[in-house]
Every structure is written in structure tokens, then in C-alpha cells.
């Protein structure tokens, strides 16, 4: 398989890539979909099927690159809603959950604990501020469709760069937790949070891919260059 279509059952998408379960809350869709096809689920939930498939395809197939025609067909409002829902999930669910476990570990880690927690909170703040920048400078103009609505000062390069930096810190955190903290500090808690971070890290990587393969080309197209 190299691309999903509206005729696939949603459960087939999930069997291929379990991470796609995360698409449901981001599109405001519900569980309990039985054996329904993608087109039916989208219709029931009032989600444009084209957008749903575009996101699932970019999310699941590394070599899937949206064509110029697909970029032109993007519905800005749906895309923005999807991205904002993803941001909310990262900040208010996953990171809070991980923070709870890191705090437990930090409390047992003596002096180094406070530094570890500070490191994690620094990462959280960085993520929050990155999302805020995107939501304030980029997203409002995408919901309109006038070509002159995109501010000229949107720096897509620095947004990509900041994706890299955040990825580095998350990878540093996994290394510190597994390789460098003294062995006796809460090993089970550390193994648990390690899986949580790996999962988040994969999801965030895909989020960055979505922004780079869908959002950025869409902005370029709206600005009237590149397409």
C-alpha cells in the first residue's frame, strides 16, 4: 500500500498505522466506527474527506508528497483546526502526562532532580512558544483565502529550524533518562516515561512533516509563488 483512499475502511488504516487513531480527536471524530469506510465516517462527522485522507497519507507514508493540485485543493480552515487540535493534545495532554512522571523521578533524584525538571519545563516552554508563534502569526491568515492575507514576515525557515531544536531536546531527554541517571532511581517509572516520550517524539516528527509537506507549500501557493 502506498496511499489510502476513501473506499478503505477506517479500521484498515488503523491496522496499517495504529498512530492514526490520533486523527479522530483532531478532526472531532468519534470512536465506535465499526466497519465503516473513510468516506462514510467523514460524512457522518462533517469532515472533508479529501483533507482527512491527505493528512492520513502524509502521516503514514514517508515518501508521499502532495501534488500541486492537492495543495490547491486544501481547505485552510480544516487544516488550521487540525493543527490547533494537535497543539492542544501535545501541550495539555501528552506533555502534562510526561511532566507528572518526570516530576516523580525528579523527586527521587536528589539534587540533579531539580535540574532535570527545569530541563523538561524549559522544553515545554519552548514548545508552547513555538505553537503560539504559529497560531498567532501563521494560522489566522490561512483561514481567509485572500492571497494578500499572508504577512510577509512569516519566517518558514525559522519554523523548520525550531522543529529541529525541539526534536534534539526530546532525544536528549530520552538519553538522560535511560543512559545517564543513576541506575537505582525509579527504574520502572523511567521505562514507562521513556515509551511515552518515544511515542510523543514520533508523533511530533510527523507533525513537523505535516507542516513541511502541507502547511508550508500551502502558504507558498497562497502567496502566489512556487505554484
Amino acid at each position, binding site marked *: 500500500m502506498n496511499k489510502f483512499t476513501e473506499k478503505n475502511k477506517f479500521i484498515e488504516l488503523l491496522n496499517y498505522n495504529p498512530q492514526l487513531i490520533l486523527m479522530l480527536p483532531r478532526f472531532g471524530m468519534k470512536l465506535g466506527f465499526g466497519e465503516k469506510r473513510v468516506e462514510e465516517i467523514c460524512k457522518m462527522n462533517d469532515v472533508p474527506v479529501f483533507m482527512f485522507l491527505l493528512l492520513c497519507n502524509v502521516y503514514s507514508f514517508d515518501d508521499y508528497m502532495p501534488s500541486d493540485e492537492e495543495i490547491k485543493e486544501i481547505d485552510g480552515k480544516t487544516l488550521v483546526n487540525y493543527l490547533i487540535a494537535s497543539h492542544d493534545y501535545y501541550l495539555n495532554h501528552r506533555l502534562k502526562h510526561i511532566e507528572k512522571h518526570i516530576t516523580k523521578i525528579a523527586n527521587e533524584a536528589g539534587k540533579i532532580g531539580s535540574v532535570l525538571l527545569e*530541563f523538561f519545563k524549559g522544553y515545554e516552554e519552548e514548545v508552547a512558544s513555538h505553537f503560539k508563534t504559529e497560531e498567532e502569526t501563521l494560522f489566522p491568515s490561512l483561514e481567509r483565502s485572500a492571497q494578500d492575507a499572508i504577512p510577509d514576515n512569516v519566517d518558514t525557515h525559522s519554523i523548520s529550524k525550531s522543529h529541529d531544536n525541539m526534536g534534539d*531536546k526530546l532525544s536528549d531527554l530520552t538519553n538522560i533518562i535511560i543512559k545517564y541517571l543513576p541506575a537505582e532511581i525509579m527504574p520502572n517509572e523511567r521505562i514507562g516515561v521513556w515509551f511515552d516520550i518515544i511515542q510523543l517524539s514520533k508523533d511530533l516528527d510527523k507533525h513537523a512533516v505535516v507542516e513541511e509537506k502541507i502547511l508550508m507549500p500551502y502558504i507558498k501557493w497562497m502567496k502566489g509563488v512556487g505554484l
Partner: protein
Amino acid sequence: MKKKSIVIIDTSSIIVEGLKTIIETSPEFKVSKIYRENYASVSIPLHGIDILLVDPRMSSVSQFSKFIHDCRTENDSMVVMALQTTYLPAQMLEGVDGVLELDDSPASIVSKLRNTSNKNAGNKTSDNCDLSQREKEVLVLVAKGLTNKEIADQLNLSVYTVITHRKNITAKTNIKSVSGLTIYALLNNLVTQSEFELSGGE
């Protein structure tokens, strides 16, 4: 291929000159310095040295093991080999990576040097969180929040060399961010928490 640099310490001219001649028949090695003295009485700059050949005779086990320990603190990627020119108690040779004996043939001397230094290089890559002394010094200054330029000035290195050390530190530890490296330095007792807080963190 870069030649491996060897330092020889022995009071006997016959031994050091003979060894030098044998070693330099091989294109892999060069003798960069000879000390015709007792090891305990010389101070040897070890930076950049790959193999140290030292004759431990006429000293006590504890003297010699302290000497080896000091050498490794200064340059922990270096191979230390003993020259066995007389009877030595087994404990004497515990801390060294290999032994050259008076009766070894030239071919066996070269192959012992090669095998011991390769074996040692292999260990270093498998234990990849081991930083060299210089890398530790750079790491400490990174953790304290200094820029590459400031680190270069403080350690008398070029900025280019500092960047190379930083790349190697990241390759060995798998940690990229400055704040992550600070935690690594704290966990390995390279800096204390008060030093880190004085510098104001990142």
C-alpha cells in the same frame, strides 16, 4: 593513514635506540619522543600521544600504578605498554594494556604494538560515553554557558578545534542541547551544581 605516535621512557640507550629502530621499520608508527630517564623523575606532556612505552623496573608496584593512573587521567585514550627488561612481579603489570619483552623479535614487537592499540581503540568505541580529558574540559565550559570563542580563548585552542570537540562530545554522549549537556556534566560530577547555578544556567 596517520602514524601512531609513540613515546619511550627507559634509562638504557641500548633499549631505546634498538626499539626506535625496530618501531620505525613499520610505516604505522613513529617515535615522537624518547626520555632516557626514570619515569618517576620526568614530566611528560601526553597530549596527542597514542602509545606510551615505559620500563617499570627499579620502582615499587604502588609507584608504578600511581604513574599509570596519572597518565590515564591526563590522556585516557592512550595505550600504555610496559617494557619488560628484567623480572617484574605480576602485580606490576596489572594496569598496563600490553607488555613488550626483551626477547621479542622485531616482527612480534610491531604486531604487539598494532594489536594492543587496535584492541584499545575498539574498547573506546563500544564504551561510547567515555570522554577524553580535553573533551571533558570543553564540556565543563559548555555547561557553564561559555561560547565557542570564549572556550577557545580559555583553553588556548582554535574555535575550529573547539567545534570539533563539541561534535565528538555529542557523537559520544548522543546529547545535542546545551542544557542536556549540562545535566550530563552534573551527573558525571564534572561540574558541581553551585558552579552551574552561578553561571545562571543556560
